[in-house]
């Protein structure tokens, strides 16, 4: 297996250097205004990912924890702090953030996003749309806003045949609180595909498989 740790030279050791502190929602407004990379080949890659995610994983080594687990924990923290502009910087230029609306058991054809709607299927442009939308201040489903607490555990590395990529699967529980509403609990597993881009370790694809993906949900307008 490739190990991006070597390529990135321990980029995760200093997260202070990772983010552009001057990057704001105005930068997102001007970024990725077309959607040129979601095509048949990309969907095929996501179907192949789901096959690979199904395999048993190996607990992370200490070095892998420093890179991959640390980045996932950092992602969770940024979302919990509602720091979406930094969250956006964790992702590659041809990324996807995908929350299926179907159960993720193997061979479920309804899981294929090419032929089925999802709870979220954000390429880089729609990810930007979502952040701009959250920041308008008039998204009434986020007024009052959601606050989340992500709890992640069970990090394992899953084999992949794709060179230059690392796959890490983890279990999560997420609590969400909006004023005037009961606290919601979501759980399931996530798959993160890491790549190196511009000398930094980045998330190329993230899939969030909710335990109750196929059931009705109350207000999923926050980021998981």
């Amino acid at each position, binding site marked *: 297996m490739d190990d991006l740790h070597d390529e990135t030279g321990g980029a995760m050791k200093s997260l202070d250097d990772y983010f552009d502190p001057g990057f704001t929602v105005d930068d997102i*407004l001007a970024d990725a*205004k*077309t*959607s*040129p*990379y*979601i*095509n*048949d080949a*990309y*969907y095929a890659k996501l179907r192949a990912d789901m096959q690979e995610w199904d395999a048993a994983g190996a607990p992370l080594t200490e070095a892998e924890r420093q890179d991959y687990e640390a980045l996932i924990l950092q992602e969770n923290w940024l979302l919990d702090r509602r720091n979406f502009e930094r969250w956006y910087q964790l992702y590659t230029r041809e990324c*996807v953030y995908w929350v299926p*609306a*179907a159960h993720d058991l193997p061979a479920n054809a*309804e899981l294929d*996003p*090419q*032929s*089925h*709607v*999802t*709870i*979220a*299927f*954000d*390429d880089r*442009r*729609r990810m*930007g*749309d*979502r952040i*701009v*939308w959250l920041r*308008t201040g*008039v*998204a*009434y*489903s986020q*007024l009052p806003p959601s606050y989340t607490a992500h709890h992640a555990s069970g990090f394992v590395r899953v084999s992949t045949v794709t060179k230059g990529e690392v796959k890490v699967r983890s279990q999560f529980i997420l609590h969400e609180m909006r004023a*005037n509403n009961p606290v919601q609990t979501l759980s399931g597993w996530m798959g993160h595909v890491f790549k190196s881009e511009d000398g930094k370790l980045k998330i190329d694809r993230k899939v969030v498989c909710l335990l109750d993906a*196929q*059931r*009705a*949900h*109350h*207000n*999923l*307008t926050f980021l998981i």
Partner: protein
Amino acid sequence: MPDPTDYSDLIEADRVHRTLYTDEQIFRTEMNKIYGGTWTYLAHASELSKPYSFVRRTLGLRPVIVTKDRNGQFHGVLNRCTHRGATVCRDESGTARRFTCPYHNWSFDNTGALVGVPMEEGYGPDFDKSKLGLGKLRVAEYRGFIFGTLNSELPDLETHLGHAARRLDEWMDRWPGGRISVRHGQHKLICNGNWKLVNDNSADGYHPGFSHASLLRMRKDRYGGGVDMQWVLGNVDEGLQTVADLGNGHTFLDQRREIERYWDQSAPMPGEDSYVETLRTRMGEKAEAALDMVMGSGMNLNIFPNLLIIGNQIQVIVPRALARTDLIWYSTSIEADDIPPEINSLRMRLQEDFPSFGEPDDLANFEECQSGLSVPEMEWLVVSRHRTTGKEYVDEHGHTTGPVTDELPIRAFWAEWQKWMTSTTKLVAQ
């Protein structure tokens, strides 16, 4: 407590009473007399493509199963064992020749007939299985849309749909020879509000510029003017959209005259630029008409009481309790030899747009309505917009039509609601 036999104290020409949304007894009556009294949407034929397929649904709060028999005929049966009352079908969908109750294994064929009772002789010589089939709905289909009722006196479905059937034809026939497929997943959104708050909104052309400010502002800030739904901004009464009362509680909001070029005015969607290039390279000029099929229809067609055809989606209102409603958005694709698969992939991505950035804001507002309507001292809701402004007219089909912010559709809904709530027709499961 309102008088259960007459709701005229609660429904006036220009206002309706808050208890219509907050009273438990009214809700229970609605679930029995409206859902099941009139033709109620149950399922789409494309969800039942194979012989012996079934889907589990509700008729009001009644659990029902919609089935397709070996001859392709659709049936609706109550999901309630005639022995002790347990549900006999517990899967959401599938194929089954028989439904066997897990409790004592009474077994029913997929038309509801009782075909097996373990140790039947124990019920004595007079036991008659032919009288113990599952309760049956009266079921009818209009071009794939399957409706059910427990009312044997209703006119046939097409008569009942009336001009709404013509609008449904227009929605289905956007691509000549295309068939609508409803097998591509759903958005299932929970609203902690009364189901009628959804109906109130479904042909409400007054709210979009305000309730959807987030979506409109995000689009404008990022992509400028000209795209998706910009026609809902400003004084829309001076625009080209209309609402109409199609009779029997069916209503229609028509945005189509505001759309010059469907593809150009579509909301953005993942894969847009990659697939456009593929299609234009492969199909040349023919790609343009196909691309127009990605964008929503520009139609909001509401079929009383629970079916909303909006954009490219089929929305079904599923009341669960007085202040709990599931709103199910069934995505659709078009099946036709000359529709390339890329069009349907783009349709999937576009059909995620409004459930992500539009509908949640409405649902949040409906929930706040439910909260506000709990105030006993503030009794009324206003539904009078454009009732007396002289802007309404009768169109060439004889339907009252008004500017898009006219609250005419809400008034038409309540007239139909009152008809069913005061109906004395006995509903029977045959």
